[in-house]
Structure formats: C-alpha cells, structure tokens
C-alpha cells in the first residue's frame, strides 16, 4: 500500500542554517503520528515541507503517491489541510466566513458554494465546537477559540491528510483533550494526521506513533513507549528526565528535572519506603545521579515497582508478611554500604520495625522525611513513637519535598556527616 505521506531524504536550509538534514520517514494511511522534539528541532519546517509551503533543497515529499513539488497549491490543498501554530487575523471576518474559506480548494473562482459546501462548513464548526461563535468577528474571539476556528477551517477543507502545528498550545485543559479526541476520531474515520506536539504526555497518550526530531534528524520513530525513554528524552531535550507509565492513562509520562537534578550526585543511598512513599524520592535521587536502593518493601508495593523501573537495588518481602531476619540482614547489608539513608514518611508498624531498628544502628547519615504526621502513620503505639523520636534525634529532618530531600542528601553525603544531629535544616526556608 502507498503510504499516505512519504518523505525521502529531505534537506531544508533556511537562512543558511540547515534545519532538516536527510530526513526520511513515512506515515501509513489512518495513523496519528506525533512530531516531538525540542524547540527549533525542525518540526514546523517538516510540516511546511509536507504541505509544500517551502521548497526543500533536496529530497521529495509524496502525499498519496503524488510528488508535492510537482503539484500546484490547489491540488495540494485538496490533499493536505494545515492548522498552523498561529494565524494572523487582521480583518474582522465572521467566524463562519473563515471556516467557509476552508472550502476554497473545492469551489471554482467564479462558482458559488453549494448546499454540500454549507453542510461541510456547519459540520466542521460543530465538530470543532465553534458553532456558537459563528457570527462573532474572528478578531474578537480568544486565542484558544481562534485555534479551534482554524481547526474547523481545516476540517471543512475535507482532505485525507491533516497537519497540525501545536494544535493544543493555546487551549485550556478541557479543549486540549477534546481537540485531541476529535483528531483521534478523524483518524478512526481514515484520515492521516501528523501533529507537532510539545506536550510529551499528550503526544504519548493520543498518537499511534511518534517521531522524535532533533538537530534536524529523526532520531527515534515508533510507538510512543519505544520513542520516549529516559535516554532519548535526555539526549533530545538536554534535560534529566524519567519516563514512567501514567497511572491512569497507562501511556508514557515524562517528568523532566531542572538543572539542579544534573548528574552531580554520587553515592549509594538506601531508602526506607513502603506504600509508595518512596516513589518520588527514588525518581529524584536516580535523576540526581545517586544510586538508590530500597527495602524492605512488599514485593507488589508501588515502591518496589518504581525500583524495578529505575533499576535500583531492591530488598523485598512477601506481601503482608513482616520483615523477617533474612530481610533485616539484607537491609543491614545495604545500610552498611550506603553513603546515606533516607527514611520516607512510611507507616510505622510492628512488621517493619526491624528495618527502622537497623537504620538506628547504621553508621551512615540519615535523612528523615517529615511528611504525614506521626499519629496518622503510627500503628505501633508507644513503641512506634519512641522509635520515631530516636530516629529524629540522630537524623537530619527535612520537609517532604523531593527537591529538599535530594539537597539534604547531597549535603550529608558531601560533608560526610556521620549521624550528627542537625535539626536546623528542618527550618530550611527554601521551597
């Protein structure tokens, strides 16, 4: 089958700068492909080459088997509709008129619009949820509404291929999702869609495939989960990032960390977790360059899952089982090799007391996360309170904020503090 879009060996230079360098990719009919990549990666340029708005230096673009370079604007505009990033609207045409301009490729210069044209315009406005704006001047509607008006115009154009350049950049959260769901419906109806999307989570959630574009080349292509990995995101965007599975949508979810999370951390950190309390810390420590270990946690605990995702050393116990001697020994072994220990705001129960006791005996500096109040998470009664007091006495206590915790870890590791109480950090005013 002929691919809907076939880009072969495409190179584009703009203003003497190479923007696309031998890009080749193809998109099958009825697929929703997301273009992701950092600013200036060439996403918009690639879209402009596909719709024929610019002439490439080298290479060809075929849509439905036809070479775009050889087609006139009118023939191209019957194959490809484009929703640009922003649209100038200098004159106050009513919204309906702007949407009706989408019919231009189908109406002769002297011809009149038929009932079918009007129906297409009405349907496009209804689908893009701009029907109630029909008589408003396009200059008076908001940026997000205008973006939907232009989407409606592209729908009225009724083409097999639809190109979207940041279709959701100006939209509120409701219309972002509605717009992408509309696009997904269009794809189900057999249209082919290529969209440049900044929001990686949205791209992963709605697109069938992604193309990761940076430095003018396609560096990864395929299903979202295979394109978006810690390594590809770090390479493309130059930022430490962790890709996890979104708990609700199940699609890839990217969390990027700022410069403070650069890999300057060094050392083994043992994290006492459980019930998911350690998950954000594990990601953050991993991103900061530390080598975390976790335990002991239940084998099906969310913290255990996180540890597996980031490849951290893990001590598990069977679900609902107390920490036995073997597990305690395993934890003690991790503690003895650790450069620091972090105690998350875990539930203190008779079952996990052996782990906390082991922390008290450890020689490494300890950072205690002051999260949930003790009363809410202590099910070991007076013994639990005593244990917590002793733990706090020998530890650095910090607020429950991943960044604060990581900073504290970095400090105790670099100063080599060996368990000297340092309660003043608790009052650290930084957010």
């Amino acid at each position, binding site marked *: 089958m002929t691919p809907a879009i076939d880009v072969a060996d495409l190179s584009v230079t703009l203003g003497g700068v190479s923007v696309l360098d031998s890009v080749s990719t193809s998109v099958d009919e009825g697929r929703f492909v997301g273009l992701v990549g950092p600013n200036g990666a060439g996403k918009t340029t690639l879209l402009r080459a596909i719709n024929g708005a610019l002439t490439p230096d080298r290479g060809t673009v075929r849509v439905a088997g036809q070479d775009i370079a050889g087609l006139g604007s*009118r*023939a191209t*505009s019957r194959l*490809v509709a*484009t929703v640009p990033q922003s649209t*100038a609207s200098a*004159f106050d045409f009513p919204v309906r008129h702007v949407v009706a301009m989408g019919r*231009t490729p189908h109406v002769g*210069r002297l011809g009149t619009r038929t009932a079918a044209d009007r129906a297409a315009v009405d349907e496009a406005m209804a689908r893009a949820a701009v029907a109630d704006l029909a008589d408003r001047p396009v200059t008076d509607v908001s940026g997000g509404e205008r973006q939907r008006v232009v989407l409606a115009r592209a729908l009225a154009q009724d083409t097999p291929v639809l190109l979207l350049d940041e279709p959701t950049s100006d939209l509120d959260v409701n219309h972002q999702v509605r717009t992408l769901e509309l696009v997904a419906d269009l794809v189900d109806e057999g249209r082919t869609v290529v969209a440049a999307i900044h929001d990686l989570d949205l791209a992963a959630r709605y697109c069938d495939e992604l193309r990761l574009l940076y430095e003018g080349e396609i560096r990864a292509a395929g299903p979202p989960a295979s394109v978006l990995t810690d390594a590809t995101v770090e390479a493309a965007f130059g930022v430490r990032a962790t890709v996890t599975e979104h708990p609700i949508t199940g699609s890839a979810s990217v969390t990027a960390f700022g410069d403070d999370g650069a890999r300057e951390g060094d050392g083994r950190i043992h994290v006492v977790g459980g019930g998911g309390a350690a998950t954000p810390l594990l990601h953050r420590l991993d991103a900061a360059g530390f080598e975390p270990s976790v335990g002991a946690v239940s084998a099906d605990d969310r913290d255990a899952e996180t540890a597996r995702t980031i490849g951290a050393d893990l001590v598990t116990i069977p679900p609902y089982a107390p920490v036995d001697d073997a597990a305690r020994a395993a934890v003690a072994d991790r503690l003895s090799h650790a450069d620091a220990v972090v105690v998350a705001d875990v539930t203190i129960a008779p079952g996990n007391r052996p782990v906390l006791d082991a922390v008290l005996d450890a020689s490494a500096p300890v950072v205690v996360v002051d999260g949930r109040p003790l009363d809410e998470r202590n099910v070991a009664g007076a013994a639990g309170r005593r244990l917590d007091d002793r733990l706090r006495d020998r530890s650095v206590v910090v607020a429950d904020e991943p960044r604060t915790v990581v900073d504290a870890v970095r400090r105790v590791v670099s100063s080599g503090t060996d368990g000297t109480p340092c309660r003043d950090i608790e009052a650290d005013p930084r957010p």
Partner: protein
Amino acid sequence: MQQILIYCKHGCKTMNTRVRTGAWVLGLLCALVAVALVSATIGPVAIGVGSVADIALAALLDGTTDAPAGHRTIVMSIRLPRIVLGALVGFALASAGTVMQGFFRNPMADPSIVGVSAGAATGAVAAILAPIAFPVALPVAAFVGALLAGFGVYVLASEGGRTPVGTLLLAGVAIQTFLGAVVSFMLVQAGRDLREAIYWLMGHLQHSTWTEAGIVAAVVVPGFLGLLVYARDLNVLLLGEEDAHSLGIEVERTKRLLLGVSSLLTAAAVAVAGVIGFVGLVVPHVMRLLVGPDHRILLPTSALAGAAFLVATDTVARAGTAELPVGIVTAAVGAPFFLYLLRNREVRTP
C-alpha cells in the same frame, strides 16, 4: 450608530452575499447618478436638473431635446466628460486602494504605496518641463512613469521568485522618497513651468474630454473586473500567505496579479488626473466599516463610493469663483472625516 453599523455589516442573517452585494451596488449606483446629475447643474451657467437629464438621455438614446444648443454643448462637451472622468478616476483609486489595504494587511496602504503616483509625478513633471510640447505627451509620460516605478519596486523587492510584502512596502517607500527628490529637483529648475507642474501635482480634472474618459475606461473597467474575479482569493490572502497557500491559493501568482492590475488602475487614474490623495485611503476604510471585510462586496461598493465621492468633491472644487485642484478638496474633506472615524474607534488598525 453602532447598531446601524452592525446591521449594515453583517446584514440580515438570511441574506446571502450576492443579494447584499446587489442591494449595495444598486443603491450606490443610484447615488452616483444623482451626484452626477446635480454636479452637471452646477457651474457658471446654471442648468436645471430636468434639462440635464433630458440632454443626457437624448444623447444616450439618440433622441431629441428642447434644451438650448448652448446648454447641450456645456453639458455634453464640458461638464459630463469631466464628471465621467472623475467618476472613473475615483472608481479606479478606490478599488486599487481597497486591494492594496488587503494585500498589505496594512491600514496605511493606498493605491500609490508601491511608488506608482511618484512615478507618474516624475513622468508628468518631466514632460511639462520638456522643451518640446506635444499634446498627448503629458498623460503618456505620467502613465509610463507610473508603471516603470511600480515595476521597479516589484523587481527590487523580489528575490528567488518570492516577493515578501514587507520588503515591497519598504522598497515602495524608498522609491517614493527618491522620486520625490527627483521631482523637487525638477521643480527647482522649472522656471516658467512651475505653476503648471504644481497644478498637475495637486490633482485636477480640468479640460477633460470624452477621449480621455474612453481611454481610462478601457483600462479601468477590464482591470476592475479582473480584481473582482480575484476577490475571494484576496479574502483568503488576508489570513496570511502561509494559510492562503494551504487553502490552495497560488500565493505569488495571485500577489503579482493583484499588484499589477491595481497599479495599472492607479496609473491610468493618475496619468489623467494627477496625484489625488486620500480617495484610495479613506473610501475603502469607510466602506469596510459599512459592509465588512469581504472583498466580494467591499470591492464593488468601494469603487462606486469612490466614484461618487470624487465627482462630489470635484464639483465643490470647481463651484467657487476660482477653481481649486480637486486633490486639495479630497484631502481637506477626507482627512477630518477619517480622523473622526479613527477617534471613534470605528476604523480598526489591523
């Protein structure tokens, strides 16, 4: 006022563009005829509206009239040619101005923005100062100068088959400035011919003949029809060139055509009437306010309104004891009115 404007602009919801256009065009045509008839009555010899209509109909239908032969000569050979030529010039300038404002997406655009009027002025002043007098040399020189300047600006602004609108605008300003210097230099050297040259530069419709009107009509009417055919493309072009391309408009070709034809209309108008300011700037703004931005209706209504406006102002210009150049009247009437609209925020700056 606001309510009336909204009603005029968007019309009755059920009324389609064609019907609205028809209604507006008919109304403005009636207004133009009325203005023309009244204008023909005014002058050193007062002639009643009735006999003007009688004389005009007789000439038109090859019938007979009771009107004195002297009146017939005044109406048919002096006043009507001037009125018809004025109408054609106003028609051409207003339609070219409408297209230029849309084309440049700029409220300051007027028919001579690409240097056409400056070129005409240069050609005309050169012809006036030329030692050899030749009856048709003046309009021909102005017309040729106008087209050369417009074409020169286009060539200077084009690169690699594309003509960016911004570059065109700046090249137009540069050429206008340069030609302005040339004209000033020639005026300094003018001597006895200075008065005639300045008079031409201010815009005038004196000594109009049917021949002139016929020649101008031969350029303006087909040119206008050409623009009208492209009215829908011009609408789409207002969305921006990139969008227009994706909607199937051959952008560069359409731009060339719009620019070329409206420059031709402007050149024809300026060649016979000199530089008449403000018609091409104010009339399209006013009509856009009344009928909205859709060029399918804006272009014909602007053109007719421009025609009526110029006939009216020319009547004022020649009504006094000493005739004024019509350019002075259009600017003197147009500018305050435009400022009024501007202050009331009824003219948008796109």
